[in-house]
């Protein structure tokens, strides 16, 4: 077993990184004074993993869209019943979610931490799928998909990703479609589980009220080494640098149009993307934050409202920047943002305002280290990005330079690689 303590002078805090003999990596951050412990057991698999192979396969296997999310749902079913029934005995509040490139099983508890942790480790590692249970889940997830079909926030984002990306699977819905999940069967689920839920491909992160000894006892008891270690190769999709189409529109029952203006970024791999995400967040603050001239102009013209915001989405091999909100004139908002990006490129960024935005971002990043859920989330994101020291992120923010920002402006916000997605209101009598 390898054990390393990582310390932050700025925060006066420590976290522990342990590589267990079983092959499992653990990142632990006990936090004094908190009542809750939060544990997240995460696999490096998400909706983008639609084609993959291991060192034992000759060819890539293609799987139906939405299978990672389906697998997440099915892991809660065990021969002895539902996993929630196991947690019911400890009082832990358990859940799971699937994102583009991660699947995370988690719980929060205030008592019986060790018992809950044993359940968590077991839930994600012991598959049990039957024909009947797969059929039942198709009904439940079918309703989840239909719920998202009515969600304007969700549709505007996925329509945008479809416009930005030609082939990259980030453009597909995380839950798949009613048709794609109909192709899932228990054998395929077993294969995905064997491949992705290998200890090499997972990490356990815990933050809050617990001790290292408790974790080690539970892991020693529950985690058995894999029969054979697996190395996953994710199929690389050929993705052109440019966007697929500049504009995509849909009608739904909404009051005011919703928009997402997205900029397709350049992926430099997991670690590069994580750092660039931070830089691009500062950049968004400079371009369109509440203190920016652009925000003021659009707000005063009444073309944006309080729902306006920005987001940088970064993953294993994709990244993009999104400006979103509600507006009666979404095309005008897009034109204003593009004009400002062009102006800043031409005139350069203002040093004083950059300093202010960096300071604001620094303050906000402190927040990532203060809530137990976000500490656990940050530890697992950093782990999969290959960033060993989570506290280095704070130093990175403190040391950002104006020159770095100027460079990011050129790469991350290229008007030629931007697309606009709009959801318009469905009027009565409309024939959509």
């Amino acid at each position, binding site marked *: 077993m390898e054990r390393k303590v990582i310390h932050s002078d700025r925060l006066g805090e420590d976290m522990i990184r342990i590589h267990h003999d079983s092959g499992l990596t653990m990142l632990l951050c006990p936090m004094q004074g908190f009542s809750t412990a939060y544990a997240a057991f995460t696999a490096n698999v998400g909706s983008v993993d639609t084609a993959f192979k291991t060192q034992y396969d000759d060819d890539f296997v293609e799987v139906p869209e939405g299978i990672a999310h389906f697998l997440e749902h099915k892991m809660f079913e065990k021969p002895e019943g539902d996993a929630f029934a196991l947690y019911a005995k400890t009082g832990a509040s358990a859940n799971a979610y699937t994102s583009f490139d991660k699947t995370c099983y988690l719980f929060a508890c205030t008592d019986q931490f060790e018992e809950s942790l044993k359940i968590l480790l077991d839930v994600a590692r012991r598959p049990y799928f039957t024909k009947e249970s797969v059929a039942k889940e198709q009904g439940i997830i079918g309703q989840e998909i239909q719920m998202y*079909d009515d969600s304007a926030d969700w549709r505007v984002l996925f329509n945008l990703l479809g416009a930005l990306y030609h082939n990259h699977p980030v453009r597909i819905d995380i839950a798949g479609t009613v048709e794609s999940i109909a192709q899932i069967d228990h054998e395929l689920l077993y294969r995905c589980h064997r491949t992705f839920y290998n200890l090499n491909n997972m990490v356990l992160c815990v933050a809050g009220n617990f001790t290292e000894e408790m974790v080690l006892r539970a892991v020693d008891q529950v985690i058995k080494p894999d029969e054979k270690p697996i190395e996953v190769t994710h199929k690389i999709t050929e993705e052109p640098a440019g966007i697929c189409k500049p504009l995509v529109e849909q009608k739904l029952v909404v*009051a005011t149009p919703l928009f997402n203006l997205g900029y397709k970024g350049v992926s430099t791999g997991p670690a590069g993307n994580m750092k660039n995400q931070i830089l691009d967040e500062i950049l968004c603050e400079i371009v369109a934050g509440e203190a920016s001239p652009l925000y003021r102009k659009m707000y005063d013209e009444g073309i944006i409202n309080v729902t306006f915001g920005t987001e940088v989405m970064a993953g294993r091999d994709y990244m993009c920047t999104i400006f979103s909100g509600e507006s009666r004139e979404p095309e005008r908002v897009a034109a204003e943002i593009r004009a400002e990006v062009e102006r800043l490129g031409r005139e350069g960024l203002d040093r004083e305002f950059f300093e202010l935005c960096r300071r604001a971002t620094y303050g906000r990043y402190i927040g990532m280290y203060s809530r137990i859920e976000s500490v656990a989330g940050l530890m697992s994101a950093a782990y999969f990005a290959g960033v060993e020291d989570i506290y280095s992120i704070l130093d990175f923010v403190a040391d950002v330079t104006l020159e770095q920002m100027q460079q990011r402006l050129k790469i991350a916000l290229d008007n030629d690689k931007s697309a606009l997605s709009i959801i318009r209101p469905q009027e009565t009598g409309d024939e959509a």
Partner: protein
Amino acid sequence: MSSPFRREPIGDGVFFSWITDPKFKHNRITASLLLPLEREQVTNRAVVPFILRKGCADYPDFTELNRKLCALYGASLACDVSKFGAYQALELSVYSVDDRFTLDNAHLVEESARLLAQVLLRPKLVDGRFSEQDVLLERQQLIDAIESQINDKRLYAMSKCKAAMCAGEKIAVEKYGYIEDAQEITPQSAYDAYCNALDRAQIEIAFVGAGEAGIAKEIFQNVFAGVQRHPVLTAPYHGRTAAEKVQETVEELDVTQSKLVMGFRTGEIKDRHAMMAMRMMVALFGGTPNSRLFLYVREKMSLCYYCASRFDRLTGLMFVDSGVKRENKQKAYDEILHQLDLLRRGEFEESEITATKLLLQTSLKAVGDSLGALDEWYLSQTVGGSCISPEEESALLEEITKDDIIKAANQVTLDTVYFLTGKEAQ
């Protein structure tokens, strides 16, 4: 320094409360103006926090105010309107990093408290009232906020059910008000609403975080010193406790998934023990992943992704909601009532009680780990006329027995069924 919850009057109808713990890295100061929900006043009042957020005497320019917040290490100055039982709460809050984590030993507690006090009490005025440009913009924003409630179909369906169920009752008044009234808002009417709110509201200033609450207290004590006010203090709400007959509403919209919402009244709740029993019953019925509605309507019958019940202790209302296929509405409806009936007859296990109790206790103990949750907990306690800590409530839950839960289930009556569905058969 660590301090348990304390609350003291610092002015006429003005209260300062604080709870601190060094485990936090931030401080949050909230000013809540609590006002009775009044159909005539509610809309002009709702626009007030948004206008105040636009600027104050020292920072009359919106952009300058926001640059100041950047300089305070990205402090956020938030405003919104909430509803607590029969009260509208106009809320302004500032959330900032604790002084310990600044790079230059800044005094953020003091600066944040001063800024909040100024935004609340020294707004930017033009000719003795709000600026016309701000009012026009914020009036439109308010209309947008009211109209956009339809964007989230689950929340929309829930609010339509509640509105139908409580028509004519105070608690039915919408927190953001009404479009037809919003269109009539003028710089003068909004300013009058502001002055009236400052005069009549019960004002709660709450400090939660890691820093020195005393500095903030002193600042607010000073600004309210000698101010003559006519506050209307909050009192617990007592509405209709039982339904006479079931009313049904169907609304058609162009949606893929239908939404079923059922509103119940929970009878007369005499004391804390009865309140806890009701809370347990609602959680056991449909509030957790081990609850009846999750296990039967979702897992066994595969009818939906969500089917949940929730209880609002300030109004005594219980709602059940589920997203289902149109043709499965009756099946879901029947099963929901069937499960309630089983609880009424006592056909549930001791293990379900234990599971529900443990999960509720976990969430109660977790309140103390979150600034936002602490803030909301104590404000809700204040409006409800009590002041117990999450730990005390957790202890009260211990005493709830199976008979208490059966009794609670038998007190519940179905009042309104609302169904939002697609325009034609799916």
